């Protein structure tokens, strides 16, 4: 069933058309990759979905409800959570407090305090920074701050999770861990995910569908295998050599038992 349905989403700032009539369908259970060169409009699309920037659209429905006129906090309460590319932690609250805020306000009623603690604890453990609970964000490393960003979103127990370049600046091992986490969130927690990423290995391995943006327009959509074949995508973003390598990797994985 379609969780998020957007038709003809357009965003303009001053004279710049950041998004032109983008159609987006996210089905329940998807891990949808959103890729494209810098400036293509990926973060803008996430902003349009979460309500942080004014957007025009024919329709924007979440779970059947029209959300295009709702303010960001209302959309969050309906079940949309997101992380930010440049992380925005609450600097003067501890890590556990940061995560708890997610648990407190994401529903229509504020839960009991034992539920809040429970959800915060669970989120911290899932993401792997439970040991840093009483530190302040400025005391964390960059990758830990990314994890905090993710934990906050998880504590909201969302139906749809929008991830904006959560792997930026991470090393190889951290990327693997995050990939595994994304798969866990999707398969075991049943959360639908939209991932904006430049780390193609992650996108290829984790996503079941990919949407490609270029200069604010959608230029391709499909499974990873199809995307890697698409000439427009290769020209706009991937490059021939890279695309060949991805195709080989995909074929290899498909051939494995």
């Amino acid at each position, binding site marked *: 069933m379609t969780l998020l349905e957007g038709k003809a989403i357009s965003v303009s700032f001053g004279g710049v058309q950041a998004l032109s009539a983008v159609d987006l369908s996210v089905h329940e259970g998807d891990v949808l990759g959103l890729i494209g060169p810098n400036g293509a409009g990926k973060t803008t699309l996430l902003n349009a979905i979460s309500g942080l920037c004014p957007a025009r659209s024919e329709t924007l429905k979440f779970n059947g409800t029209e959300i295009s006129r709702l303010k*960001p*906090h209302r959309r*969050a309460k309906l079940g949309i959570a997101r992380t930010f590319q440049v992380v*925005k932690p609450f600097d003067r609250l501890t890590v556990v*407090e940061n995560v708890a*805020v997610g648990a*407190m*306000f994401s529903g229509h009623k*504020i839960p009991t305090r034992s539920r809040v603690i429970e959800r915060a604890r669970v989120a911290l453990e899932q993401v792997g920074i439970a040991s840093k609970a009483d530190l302040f964000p400025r005391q964390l490393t960059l990758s830990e701050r990314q994890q905090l960003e993710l934990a906050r979103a998880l504590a*909201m127990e969302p139906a749809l999770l929008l991830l904006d370049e959560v792997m930026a600046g991470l090393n190889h091992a951290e990327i693997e861990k995050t990939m595994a986490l994304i798969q866990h969130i999707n398969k075991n927690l049943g959360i639908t995910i939209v991932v904006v990423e430049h780390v193609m290995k992650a996108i290829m391995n984790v996503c079941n569908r990919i949407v490609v943006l270029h200069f604010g327009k959608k230029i391709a959509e499909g499974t990873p295998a199809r995307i890697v074949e698409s000439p427009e995508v290769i020209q706009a973003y991937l490059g021939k050599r890279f695309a060949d390598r991805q195709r080989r990797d995909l074929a290899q994985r498909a051939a494995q038992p």
Partner: protein
Amino acid sequence: MAGFDKKDAGPALPSIVLGAAVLVFLILAPFVLSNYWLRVLTSILMYGIVAQGLNIIVGYTGYHAFGNSVFFGIGAYSTGVGMALGLPFGLALALTVPVAVVVAVMVGWPLLRLSGHYFAIATVALNMAMMEMVINVGGITGGAQGLALPINPMGPAMLYKIIYLVMLLILAGATATVYWLDRGSLGYALRALRDSEQGAQVMGINTTAMKIMAWAASGSFTALAGGVWAYWFTFIEPSSAFDINISIKGYVMMLMGGLGTVFGPLIGAAFLELFATIIWGKFLKIHLLLLGMLIVLVVTLMPQGLLHHLRWFKRRGKPKEVIR
């Protein structure tokens, strides 16, 4: 409600003892102090209220309302006009709250969209604009000539004690509110929006409503202080009711004591007001000069406030995930 404390194992013994002593003193004060010192203490309480009001909007919400004295003036004039229309003091004072709330909502809606400096300056302009408006409207407000409030027949000795008591109750209310904010989920909403407004929004916090509510609370307490002040001094004029120094002093007191803490503003208020009173007594000619210097020194040397430096009064105990 759910809350977390990073360093909570209970307050340290010195602060419990001190707190109890202060409480006892405050209760006995009307019977023990001379009229002069009781007035000084009342002044401290009044500034304490102003500083706590600022603490709500500045310390916890992150919006620097330098012009919050506008509410002080609104409270003074609401009370004055109310009594001029025949209302008894208690009722006139109580009515300042809805007036303050209405103003905060109407003005807060456009102004709270501004950030940082712009909001600070806009509130100063608001304060000045209100002052000019009262002067120009004249009529029942008395305009530039000022407004006299009815004098209570009960006589100064008794009256001062009652004024003191009312101020104390209002301050207790303001402090209780800040205490509740410090530990409750609403307080978390405010602090989250203070630290990252967008982050707060995407986590389900209605930042516009929260900001306006915080300013309404801040304004209400400040207005109550202004109302009592009006009755206390029995004569008000626009330039003293809307005096920007009231805000600035309150702001410095909040800074000195430590913003975003429950008792910081009170400590700051006590310190600065005592200092100002002593200086005024001894150095009448240059007291403003010394006040100016003190402000400069405090801001330059102690921007994080006294509470931050008086470590042994802070809570003891290792960081625990204790939910209050």
